[in-house]
């Protein structure tokens, strides 16, 4: 018990001694202090906003555990920004320190797996999106297919769309095939966003409607019959309620 208390005090002192500014610009909603050393953001990667670790947002034991874990993650070459964000989100939602540590560890493991699949030079935003996709149930084969569909560009939007439509009930294989098919098209980000919107709008209308919307949208987009901005599902008549 005494050692735990001493560790906690040491953590507080360490946190107070290190100038980890956590203030945010309320007007602009952007972290006002950045530290590449603390956030672990890679230089030249502007897609991920810098984020700082604020130990005062956590209890002393959680802050100490997080700092130790972030140090080990940095030694493994993992970007710390997404991990710090997951921790800050947990603190804002007022969940327990144990849950925060569990989520941060799981996200770090998913990012390491995503880096092994996508490559060591994958940008932080791509790694974060890929880790999120893995945690949503997307498999390694789907990630590789997404990477292959866009060998040079960012895969953030395809991964975000894939994660979302899988969560809305589309089977992984169908979702992977649809997203990779659209992602191979030039300037396909808008088409992918349209796919997400079509699936999201129809998935709330009943089971099976998400897959139906995906198929209809894919037919309209790939064949060129309908522009991506006009999802094929908008012409579907609403279901008439049965007469009493």
């Amino acid at each position, binding site marked *: 018990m005494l050692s735990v208390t001493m560790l906690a005090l040491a953590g507080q002192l360490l946190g107070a001694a290190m100038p980890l500014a956590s203030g*945010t610009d309320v007007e602009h909603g952007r972290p006002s202090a950045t530290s590449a050393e603390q956030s672990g953001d890679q230089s030249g990667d502007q897609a991920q906003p810098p984020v700082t670790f604020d130990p005062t947002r956590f209890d002393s034991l959680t802050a100490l555990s997080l700092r130790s874990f972030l140090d080990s993650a940095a030694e493994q070459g993992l970007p710390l920004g997404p991990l710090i964000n997951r921790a800050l989100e947990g603190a804002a939602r007022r969940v327990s320190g144990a849950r925060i540590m569990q989520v941060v560890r799981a996200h770090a493991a998913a990012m390491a797996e995503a880096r092994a699949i996508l490559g060591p030079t994958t940008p932080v935003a791509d790694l974060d999106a890929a880790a999120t996709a893995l945690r949503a149930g997307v498999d390694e084969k789907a990630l590789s297919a997404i990477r292959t569909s866009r060998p040079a560009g960012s895969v953030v939007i395809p991964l975000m769309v894939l994660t979302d439509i899988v969560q809305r009930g589309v089977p992984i294989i169908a979702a992977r095939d649809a997203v990779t098919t659209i992602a191979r098209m030039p300037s396909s980000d808008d088409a992918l966003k349209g796919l997400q919107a079509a699936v999201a709008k129809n998935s709330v209308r009943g089971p099976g409607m998400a897959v139906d919307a995906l198929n209809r949208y894919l037919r309209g987009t790939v064949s060129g019959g309908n522009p991506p901005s006009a999802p094929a599902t908008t012409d579907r008549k609403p279901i008439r309620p049965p007469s009493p």
Partner: protein
Amino acid sequence: MTDRDVLPFPAPDQDDADIAARIAALYERTPATEARQADRCARAVLAQSMHQSSRSALGVSRTRWWWGAAAAAVLITATTRPWRGVVSTQEADSAVGRAIAAATLSGTVTPSDSAVRFDLTLPTSASAVAIVGDFNGWDQNATPMASRDGTWSANIPLTPGRHVYAFVVDGKRWIVDPLAPQVPDDGYGPANAVVIDGGPQ
């Protein structure tokens, strides 16, 4: 003990007693029925009843067993209504649609050159709404949203890339836009994600 003692009705007069005695005597003289003959009679009656042709009375044919079966099938079909599943699905879909329409929780994200505008329409009144995300350190006090005509809005300058966010209503209730891209519930609760253009495709 005689029959007279066990009869539950009043004793008959003498004439009835004589008649009863003669009937009893005749019955006692009647030879016993042979078992084979009784069996033959029963089989004959049963066979005749099974192969009896349809008879009509007053122009209406006598009902047969398949008529009863057909009536039972119609009754069961009308009672259970196998097509009821389709109707239930339609009702469920309509109920979902009505619930969603009633909730009227909707949000929009409108990127522009200088900032990204987040709009949120709530189905119920709220005293304060804030947007939190990885762009403000998930700080509820960092980015309050302004209310106008029932819609809460905030302009946030965001760097290109992917951002995860959520809305906090009255400092307690965390909600997400149901139609915006969502990230999985990783133990905290759902959140939305948005990608600001700017990176290479």
